[in-house]
């Protein structure tokens, strides 16, 4: 007991420092929030479609195949940045891509899509942001990967990049598709 008590400070300190090294090495952002909906069902929504001549979707439309649901706004800078990737996904038909227009003005959103191109198969408008809260959205852009049973499998916060698509999303998509084939 005599000597051990004096070693205690060092041991405690050593433990604390070890815990400090982990986030630094992982380069984790303390503000990045993991989605609370992972492995849960997609929230129900009855959102109106964005355009008249383009269909919207509800949670039933998400069944039957893998889908990426992307929250975007015309006033959001990073959404512009990720737009190229979304166009690429749409052209290469990598995966079904739906959009939810977040807290935006309809005309502004339509003009934005006209100007940059429309990668979405279906789009709905969440004008007051309530539906987004149901999804656990806390900023735009955010992208959700939904499997064929309508469950949330992955969420990416911030603009989508080639790297994220290849390293994070595609592996999960492959996994989900392989399950289908079995």
């Amino acid at each position, binding site marked *: 007991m005599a000597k051990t*008590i004096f070693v205690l400070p060092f041991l405690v300190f050593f433990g604390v420092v070890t815990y400090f090294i982990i986030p630094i090495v992982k380069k984790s952002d303390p503000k990045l929030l993991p989605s609370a909906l992972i492995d849960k069902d997609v929230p129900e929504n009855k959102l109106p479609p964005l355009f008249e001549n383009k269909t919207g979707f509800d949670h039933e439309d998400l069944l039957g195949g893998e889908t990426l649901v992307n929250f975007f706004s015309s006033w959001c800078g990073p959404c512009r940045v990720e737009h190229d990737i979304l166009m690429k996904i749409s052209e290469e038909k990598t995966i079904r891509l739906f959009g939810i227009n977040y807290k935006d003005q309809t005309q502004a959103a339509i003009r934005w899509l006209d100007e940059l191109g429309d990668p979405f198969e279906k789009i709905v408008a969440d004008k007051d942001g*309530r539906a987004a*809260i149901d*999804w656990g959205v806390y900023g735009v852009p955010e992208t959700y990967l939904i499997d064929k049973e309508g469950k949330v499998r992955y969420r990416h916060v911030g603009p989508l990049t080639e790297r994220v698509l290849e390293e994070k999303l595609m592996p999960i998509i492959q996994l989900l598709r392989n399950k289908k084939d079995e």
Partner: protein
Amino acid sequence: MVALGCLIYIQPIMAVEPNERLADPLLEERARMLSQNIRCLVCQNQSIDDSNATLAKDLRALVREKLTAGATNDEIFDFLVDRYGDFILLNPPFKASTYLLWYGPLIFLIVGLLMTVLVMKKSKRRASEKPLSQEERVSLSKLLEQKDET
């Protein structure tokens, strides 16, 4: 590489606008109390009551709507936790992942007390085991004489 040296800050403007407030003062009071316990997720460590961010505003409105509809405090917290996880609560919940946190202070107090008592008992024992040396005996008697003088 010249690294960025700017301090990150928050918009310090006031939060709850007059048109947000509920008519019923008791409900409004509850709304403020709840808001102070809900974290603003796009801010650097603020509650939605203090923050000017749009998300904070939306969440404040949501809280007030639910209160007016008759939800209890717990129901409102649960609603938010279902969507955003425990992170959104500024008052950490009491569950398995936070037992260490909530019991911590009590554990510290008990351990501290125990250690204090043990160490003091031990030093008492150590001292009584050591007989006085000749010098110490002499100074002891000198001290005793001095004390008698005063």
